[in-house]
């Protein structure tokens, strides 16, 4: 499940009020989530949660659920 905090970061970056994120949601389904905004979302997530992602880890992300899992693993959840 996508946490409220992660959802907020993504919505803020994309200038959206709401979006029904599911684990399997992929970037092209979300208005505004293109490759340039993707970089900004990742940087915003890093800043908000004080974590660092490696580029190669990011290449493995297929959906928002993967991002949540990767974030959780960084936060030792």
């Amino acid at each position, binding site marked *: 499940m996508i946490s409220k905090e992660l959802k907020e970061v993504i919505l803020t970056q994309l200038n959206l009020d709401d979006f029904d994120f599911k684990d399997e949601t992929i970037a*092209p389904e979300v208005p*505004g989530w293109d*490759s*340039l905004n993707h970089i900004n979302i990742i940087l915003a997530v890093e800043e908000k949660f004080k974590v660092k*992602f490696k*580029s190669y880890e990011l290449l493995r992300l297929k959906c928002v659920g993967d991002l949540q899992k990767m974030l959780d693993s960084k936060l030792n959840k």
Partner: protein
Amino acid sequence: MSEFNFNIEEAPTLWKRWKLNSERNPDRDAIVHWVAGQEPFRWTYKNLIDSAKRFSVKIRELGIKPGEVCATIIRHNPKFYPLYLGISRAAALPAVLAYPNPRLHPDKFRQGLEGMALRSGLDYILTERELEPIVKPLIEKTGSTIKAVYFPLEWEFNAELDSKLDAEVEEVASKTKDTDPMLLQHSSGTTGLQKPVVLSHRAILCHVKNLGAALKLTEKDKIASWLPLYHDFGLIAAYQIPLAYGITSIQIDPFEWVLAPVLLPEVISKEKATTSFSPNFAYNVLAEKINEEELEGLDLSSLRIIVNAAEPIRHDSHEKFIARFKKYGLNPLALAGLYGMAEVTLGATLTEPGKPIPELSVDRNELSRGIMKLANKDSVLRVCVSSGQPIDGCKLKIVDENRNEIEDGLVGEVAVTSASMFDGYRNYPEKTTEVVANGMYYSGDYGFRWKGEYYIIGRKKDIIICAGKNIYPEDIEDVMNNVDGLIPGRTIAFGLEDVDMGTEVVAVVSETRAETDEDKNKVRMNILKAGMSIDIIIHKVYLVPPRWLIKSSSGKPSRKANKERLISGTDQLVWSR
């Protein structure tokens, strides 16, 4: 140090040139196919040619004839390169098309491809199995030019090459003349509005010679590129030029690069690449969107030249790039600028390698009136970055609206003639007549000349250049005709400068009868989704009441006038987000 030396006559077609390179340097890397986290796949010149022969024999077997157009729609794959060469050996014309983004609705992709097939005269589609359901129906369509769809990544070859067919194809290749068409590329743009440009062997080889000389290429150079090959910048600069000149091109997956920009500095460092190319936005991305830890230990001192082109060159982007990478060995003098277009194969001007790029601090207000005036203390400043001087074989002039040349320092349209000029748009004589006269190509770009340097400052046409990709406002406006909550025909699209990203982003202004904030937000979402359906991200939406948009003399809403009104005004009737 060896010097640039390129004799067109000793191998006057591309296949002959590639074969010659393979004979001279069989074990040299031709293509290093880079995939993040994996050992790269290395095509030596010999292996590449051997494999290309197999593809060309298969193409012959399938009955593809000389002069027919083979459009490839294939993701980053090591088999792409010998396939491309094989098509050329069989004297067919390769045309690289973009693989559709998942965001693009399949129907829209099919419609775009259908329009392009008709306009460009595509004969065959060579693609991946995944696209079969989308592409195959095009063959049955009435009036379709597409004869068949093939899946070359699945082709399996016997150990032994069929010597009879191989000899037949070699015969075809040997009879190909330098003036015969070699490839079809599209002036970059969206869907149906792309213009097909056919280039001859001679045009391309002349360009290798002239741009290669301007770049001061040597046998020791290695090119590192993430640029997509469906774009003239990637196809000519980072693929055709190195392969024809016989040096190494390292190809990074564009989709991977945009998610992991560190790949470019990493590849430069690991492979000791000397030459690279990127549009302006990439300088911002590289400077600002990579974590410091990922750059640790990288060494960019091998980089001799990195060329900025395909969108306006911005002073701040270069400053940021140098500031970030100087400590990793980047030579600030490696930065260069190029101006060009697919219609002259690629380049028309280039700044001098190894020298500072000339810049002018000018008065922005005077410039908007068409006069380049050096800034004084009262000026609103604009820094103009040079795109260099004409390369050999190219002549440029700046002209007024009557196409008469104007003096240095005055802003006008850039006109170009080149030894590598296209022969007109394929199947599009009316468009060719519009832009070509007396051997000059009228670019639609605005600029001025100063002390021999060309400065490109804007566009006559309304094209939006977002991250190096040309977007036609008409495509966006068309798709808005069916959006719920909008008045049909009352939307315009335009580009807005995004200083942070060093590029333009897409904005739309639409007339709507929606009145409440809630309704306007719903309309905005509809607009964003409509943009997504044609793979265009809309960054800013302005909503205005009916009859707000200013019309041009043609009766259509004016992009320029409405953009200016929106940016400068504080109209209470405008809702934006």
